[in-house]
């Protein structure tokens, strides 16, 4: 039975005709409309809200650029909105679901070629359907001594994660920074090569080409469909040594951050290190009910016992040493002496944490080995789902402590444990708050929605900006970037009108709407 959902403003007859034309392009198997079970896989499985609010009308999976161009022609003809996904499995931000109900999901999973791996210049060129797992397996099979930089779930798409400005955990953790060159199909079917261009031998070596550098406008946006992307890969270093440092008190985040900043800026800690909160660290290994079976926030006594039993701190810093042993030894001496200034700091290497699932998955990620361990965090509450609130924090003690206190207090106010971490970049920290709620409990869902709305409003008032957000909150977060009468979003809207005048590409992505749907 077909889904009853239609794109906005499209009659059943017109949509049926469009689907016939889509079917003729990709074949019966790759237009998903009648198979309810398959179409349901494009819904937002983690949503705390009405799942129909972001349900697609169909999904279509092309296998190459030519099919995409034909699909776009049909979409323009009937004014069918398309929502592009690469692997579409970042459930914390909405998965493969579109922002607007009724969109046709353009699923690029069949475009899964690893087009090139250049081990001399250390880069790969991939299509959108390539996951971190697949890229890693490819490199392993070919015995190529290059590391990918995976996001936490292995099945994430290299292109999709980079296009959403996601992050990883090796020294190449700023994914968009290590992107170089992309191929984009515009709404009118034009194929564009950015940077040095398709035929240049330096296509994936030099990012900027000549004139305006446009790659950024295709990230977290709806101005084009990325069909190829170059990413730099880290050469396997001569040595690798992951480490963990635990700190006993919540307020230690102030001193940790102040000590960390010069180490990061001077690249003594080269990787995207993480300062992980107690609950996040524990949840890899235990569930809440192992220590507390009451309602609401886990009390401090239970948190203390859990920390003692698991030999972890209120903060748990993960970093890694890379390079020849003398360099690793020298850098470690500086790092250890620095963090030893924090009373109660404890230092661990891999041999000290044998069988520790949390240490193991962090060690893998910092070494470019994809895993799916992080999903285990959702067992904290049993049948857990999550949405993430992710403001950017300065790398200052005051900034980190204020932001942590604010978010922890808000979580507690609404009955949630603070489950967060600071991902430390070169000049900033991504403060990721994982809001875990009970997927099948209506009260839990309502509470997490209420909490999220308060976080958006109050974080904005405090000057915290989010770096990425869930489908449902894209408009709300966009509104917080409103300096000078929304000048930034006016630029985005002008680009949208120029590049996609019919508004067929991902309407509402990051709060960018086509003209006919614009509310402001």
């Amino acid at each position, binding site marked *: 039975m077909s889904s009853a959902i239609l794109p906005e403003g499209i009659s059943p007859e017109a949509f049926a005709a469009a689907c016939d034309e889509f079917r003729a392009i990709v074949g019966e198997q790759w237009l998903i409309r009648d198979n309810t*079970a398959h179409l349901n896989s494009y819904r937002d499985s983690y949503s705390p809200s009405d799942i129909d609010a972001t349900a697609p009308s169909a999904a279509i999976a092309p296998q190459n650029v030519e099919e995409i161009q034909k699909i776009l022609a049909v979409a323009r003809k009937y004014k069918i909105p398309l929502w592009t996904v690469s692997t579409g499995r970042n459930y914390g931000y909405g998965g493969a679901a579109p922002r607007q109900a009724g969109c046709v999901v353009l699923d690029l999973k069949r475009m899964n070629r690893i087009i090139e791996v250049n081990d001399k210049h250390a880069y790969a060129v991939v299509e959108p359907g390539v996951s971190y797992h697949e890229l890693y397996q490819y490199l392993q099979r070919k015995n190529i001594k290059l590391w990918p930089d995976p996001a936490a779930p292995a099945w994430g798409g290299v292109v999709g994660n980079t296009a959403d400005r996601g992050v990883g955990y090796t020294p190449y953790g700023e994914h968009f920074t290590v992107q170089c060159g992309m191929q984009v199909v515009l709404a009118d079917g034009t194929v564009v090569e950015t940077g040095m261009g398709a035929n240049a031998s330096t296509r994936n070596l030099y990012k900027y080409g000549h004139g305006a550098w446009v790659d950024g406008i295709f990230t977290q946006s709806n101005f084009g469909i990325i069909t190829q992307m170059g990413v730099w890969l880290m050469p396997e270093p001569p040595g690798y040594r992951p480490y963990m440092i635990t700190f006993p008190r919540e307020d230690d985040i102030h001193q940790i951050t102040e000590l960390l900043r010069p180490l990061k800026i001077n690249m003594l800690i080269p990787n995207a290190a993480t300062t992980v909160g107690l609950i996040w660290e524990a949840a890899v290994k235990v569930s809440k009910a192992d220590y507390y*079976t009451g309602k609401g926030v886990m009390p401090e006594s239970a948190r203390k016992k859990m920390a003692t039993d698991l030999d972890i701190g209120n903060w748990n810093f993960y970093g890694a040493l890379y390079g020849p042993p003398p360099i690793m030894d020298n850098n470690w001496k500086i790092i250890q002496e620095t963090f030893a200034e924090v009373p109660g700091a404890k230092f661990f290497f891999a041999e000290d944490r044998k069988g520790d699932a949390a240490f193991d998955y962090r060690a893998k990620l910092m070494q470019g080995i994809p895993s799916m361990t992080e*999903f285990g965090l959702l067992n904290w509450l049993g049948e857990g789902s999550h949405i993430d609130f992710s403001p950017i924090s300065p790398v200052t003690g005051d900034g980190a402590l204020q932001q942590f206190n604010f978010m922890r207090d808000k979580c507690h106010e609404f009955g949630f444990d603070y489950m967060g971490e600071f991902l430390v970049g070169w000049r900033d920290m991504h403060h990721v708050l994982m809001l875990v709620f009970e997927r099948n409990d209506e009260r839990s869902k309502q509470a997490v929605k209420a909490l999220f709305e308060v976080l958006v409003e109050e974080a904005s008032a405090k000057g915290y900006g989010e770096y990425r957000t869930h489908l449902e909150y894209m408009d709300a977060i966009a509104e917080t970037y409103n300096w000078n009468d929304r000048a930034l979003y006016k630029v985005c809207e002008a680009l949208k009108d120029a590049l996609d005048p019919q508004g067929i590409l991902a309407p509402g992505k990051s709060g960018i709407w086509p003209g006919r749907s614009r509310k402001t």
Partner: protein
Amino acid sequence: MLARRQFLISTLAAAATPQLAVGLERLGRAETYVIAEMCGAGRHFAECANGKTKPALADPNALLFDLEDQVSRGAVDRIIGLSRPSTKFLIEQVAAAHGFTTHYHGSHRLEASALRHEFFAPPELLTSLNTISASPTWAGDVARLLQHYEPSSGTSTMSVRRSLANDVSQELRHLSSFLLVRK
């Protein structure tokens, strides 16, 4: 009379998979993929579903990619399992993209030293689940039941049945059992 069962271990998954046992079993017309968490209950589930187990870490990466390969090739028509809830969710996501639906799921949760079962199933399956003993053998009983259950055609309404078993321990606080079938 059941056809002779051939049990295959997915070597990729078995070599690298965390606390999960994976098996591919031929049962009459259906190819069944068996998944079991590496804990006491999971091992018992796998044994009764003719599964072989190998202990490892809590990373279902290799399992999920192997499952995806099997379902995309059409080698599997049903999936039964007993795992942590997060793993069940991931399996459902992989399988749904290939037309599988969850025909049954169960929650087996330790609460104040008692094991609480919640079974969500069509009425005819619930009737059989009613006979599941509240004993340490419950996991094997569920496995055998799911192994032989043939879903009726059409959509079945899920009902729920709860039962409580005292004095039954479980290593992992919360496990989920499930049956996914390709329509």
